[in-house]
């Protein structure tokens, strides 16, 4: 365990070094968040909205603040190039489990990026005038479940995106088909349009997939759009998906590594 924590800490500390990129990112996200809120709120004003105006604003500000924890497209390009160039050979020479090493590395990278970005966005979000502001959580229970489901959402998104690195081991091409699928996964997670705005049939499909558990679930628990009483069941579902995807990922990675060839010397 200590090995993986040390690896996590290393990647986390390095992630904190990218301050300028984070500030620039936060500025973009702030602008983007505003656009999304105004679009969704004007839909909502037309009537029959499943989320009220403050719930929409909270959803979007949290989404933008914790972007790095929940988006599919956040990549560790250093790990990708280590796989392609063969530096990853060293990682197979360690008395540690490569899946767990990569898992802690990816989680740490996301956490570091989120830590740098969330502060300013949350602060400004809370200070904005009423319908645009980030509200307080619906209740203490909602706040607690939000934190838990956000953390599990991070584990889940890492377990999902891990498959792109495993594919990279096989194809040695960092731009795997996963990149093509990422926007679809993104849409399915509620990153583009919150799930409640979608037609009933689409919702039924998307709610059966794991992606919404990374974005839709924590963000709606916060504002009470998913009542605190329903949260434990969905959080258990998160744990189940994490267990399934980690088991599949481990098996896939060890298969991929068995067939791997480390070329060029």
């Amino acid at each position, binding site marked *: 365990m200590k090995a993986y924590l040390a690896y996590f800490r290393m990647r986390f500390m390095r992630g904190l070094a990218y301050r300028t990129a984070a500030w620039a990112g936060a500025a973009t996200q702030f602008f983007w968040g505003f656009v999304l809120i105004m679009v969704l709120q004007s839909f909502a004003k037309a009537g029959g909205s499943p989320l009220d105006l403050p719930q929409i604003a909270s959803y979007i500000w949290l989404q933008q603040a914790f972007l790095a924890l929940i988006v599919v497209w956040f990549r560790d390009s250093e790990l990708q190039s280590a796989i392609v160039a063969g530096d990853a050979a060293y990682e*197979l*020479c360690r008395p540690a489990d490569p899946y767990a090493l990569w898992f802690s590395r990816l989680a740490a990278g996301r956490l570091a990026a989120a830590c740098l970005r969330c502060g300013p966005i949350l602060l400004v979000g809370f200070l904005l005038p009423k319908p645009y502001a980030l509200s307080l959580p619906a209740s203490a229970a909602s706040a607690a479940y939000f934190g838990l489901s956000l953390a599990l959402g991070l584990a889940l998104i890492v377990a999902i995106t891990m498959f792109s690195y495993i594919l990279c081991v096989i194809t040695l091409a960092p731009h795997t088909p996963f990149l093509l699928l990422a926007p679809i996964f993104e849409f399915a997670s509620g990153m583009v349009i919150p799930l409640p705005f979608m037609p009933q049939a689409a919702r039924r499909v998307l709610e059966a997939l794991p992606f919404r558990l990374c974005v839709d679930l924590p963000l709606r628990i916060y504002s009470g759009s998913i009542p605190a009483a329903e949260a434990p069941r969905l959080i258990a579902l998160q744990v189940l998906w994490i267990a399934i995807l980690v088991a599949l990922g481990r098996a896939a990675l060890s298969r991929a590594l068995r067939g791997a060839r480390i070329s060029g010397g």
Partner: protein
Amino acid sequence: MIKVEDLRKSYRARRRSSGPLQAALSLFKPDREVVEALRGVSFSIKPGEIVGYIGPNGAGKSTTVKIMCGILVPDSGSCLVRGLVPWKDRKAHVARIGAVFGQRSQLWWDVPVLDSFELLRDIYRVPAADYSRNLEELAEALGLASFLDMPARSLSLGQRMRCEMAASLLHGPDILFLDEPTIGLDAPSKLALRAFIERANRERGVTVVLTTHDVHDIEALAKRVILIGRGEILYDGSFDRLVAGASGSLEEAMAAVYGEHGLA
């Protein structure tokens, strides 16, 4: 200490002639070819030996080393290192070996070298006292003191390779696999590395398997050489005997052996 028997490993490679027509055809009917990297390699190495494992590019040197390190799985054959099968008992095995791959890096690019070392300390669970003693010894023997607090990206290749070498020995392994450790280095760095390998072998009794294209590495270090070509062992024996028939020149001796096997 190391016992390799009838090791075989093949890869599938794609090939096609040049030109757009061939490119289009290969979409439908890719021409795959099986490349046999190892065709029945056997040898054994005793504790405390320094063995030079040499051969032309593509002969199967790195493949053998990577199998012995537990990174690659052979198609058939057996390999025991200290009684363990590297790719089956991988974790227990790699905890007690050190490896340097000359064309790869294990140091984190933009953090001080010491941070990378401390990460390795935690991954190998090296006790604090052992770590500081090893670090002190290695820093002294390899002359690292002046740049341990610099990020790996700002080191010269020679400095970096010395750090890579230290990184592989922090956990006190008794076997060291060196895959082209001197590639691209300038003369002083090569000399420093050779002196260090010799010393680690003499003082700590570290068994060393060294692949290299630099005949001087072999001359300076290896009493025994294993010569491999096209996936087969062509010569395994003392360095002196190999060069005896070629007026002392390793390069000529190697060329003669390749000639005998039609590999020239």
